[in-house]
């Protein structure tokens, strides 16, 4: 598997880097799309490439993805198990996904330019007002924002503490919140490992949650607890199904 995946992914990345400026420019001129939207489309296609190239060894299953209405603004929250999780977001039906992440990826020069071009959100390096304003702008354009509410990858597969940002954004913006449960990437490429392992990866969408009922002062805290409980139950069910 690794003899195929690493060279193939390297070639895919190099191809992307070489052709990116030309294709990006053509998209801007011919499709007349905003630069940040084109960049998010590229990221989605790049992620799809990873999915396709690893597909001979990894079975990808999308579950209940029909619950997600493409083109409808929402906040996605997804559990975090592996570096590969971000690429698996290419399994979502829409490419217009703005990632809300911590500051450290913005400090990696090979990521930061693309991330800034895609207008990804540095939630750690921005004030709450800036983050909320950026999210509202994204929703106004029909986009979605994706958070990993745990902040970093789980080392034991169990859900960690959920930070409040995603839930506050969803409530303050009045958009639905869609929990996503990912399972299997911890076997493909767990933290601290460099070799891929064949596995099945499942991405399950849960029912979108309208947030209007959570507008009280502690509403986002209640929403956070309910979503975490729901995701923990779903992940336990998914793991039991795998056995």
């Amino acid at each position, binding site marked *: 598997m690794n003899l195929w995946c690493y060279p193939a992914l390297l070639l895919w990345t190099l191809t992307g880097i070489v052709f990116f400026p030309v294709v990006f420019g053509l998209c801007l001129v011919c499709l007349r799309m905003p630069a940040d939207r084109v960049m998010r489309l590229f990221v989605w296609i790049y992620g799809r490439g990873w999915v396709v190239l690893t597909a001979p060894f990894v079975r990808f299953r999308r579950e209940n993805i029909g619950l997600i209405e493409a083109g409808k603004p929402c906040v996605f929250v997804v559990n975090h198990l592996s570096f590969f999780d971000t690429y698996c977001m290419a399994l979502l039906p829409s490419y217009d996904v703005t990632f809300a992440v911590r500051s450290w990826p913005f400090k990696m020069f090979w990521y930061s330019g693309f991330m800034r071009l895609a207008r990804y959100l540095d939630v750690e390096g921005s004030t*709450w007002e800036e983050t909320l304003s950026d999210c509202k702008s994204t929703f106004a354009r029909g986009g979605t924002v994706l958070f990993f509410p745990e902040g970093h990858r789980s080392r034991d597969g169990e859900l960690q503490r959920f*930070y*409040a940002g995603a839930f506050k954004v969803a409530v303050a913006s009045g958009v639905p919140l869609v929990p996503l449960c990912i399972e299997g990437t911890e076997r493909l490429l767990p933290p601290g490992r460099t070799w891929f392992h064949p596995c099945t990866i499942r991405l399950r969408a849960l029912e979108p949650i309208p947030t209007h009922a959570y507008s009280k002062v*502690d509403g986002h805290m209640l929403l956070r607890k309910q979503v975490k409980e729901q995701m923990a139950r779903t992940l336990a069910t998914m793991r039991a199904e795998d056995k």
Partner: protein
Amino acid sequence: MTEQEVIELIDSSLAEEFELERAEMTPEANIYEDLGLDSLDTVDMVIVLEGAFKFKIREEESVRAIRTLGDIHQFVLTKVAENS
């Protein structure tokens, strides 16, 4: 409430809300660096404390100066003494 009961209510409320390890909740623990809270959590912390002690503190300037769990203990003890 005794001082110890106030401290216990603070610690148990924060531990439950933010899923903190009680063993790490020492008075010297920095709420950001040691307990892993972020700036949004401090807003939620105020809501949690207001719910636990039935007072209003969100307009208090001194909340912004809180850095350690011991600061929270001292702040709440002062407020409880003022309100009693």
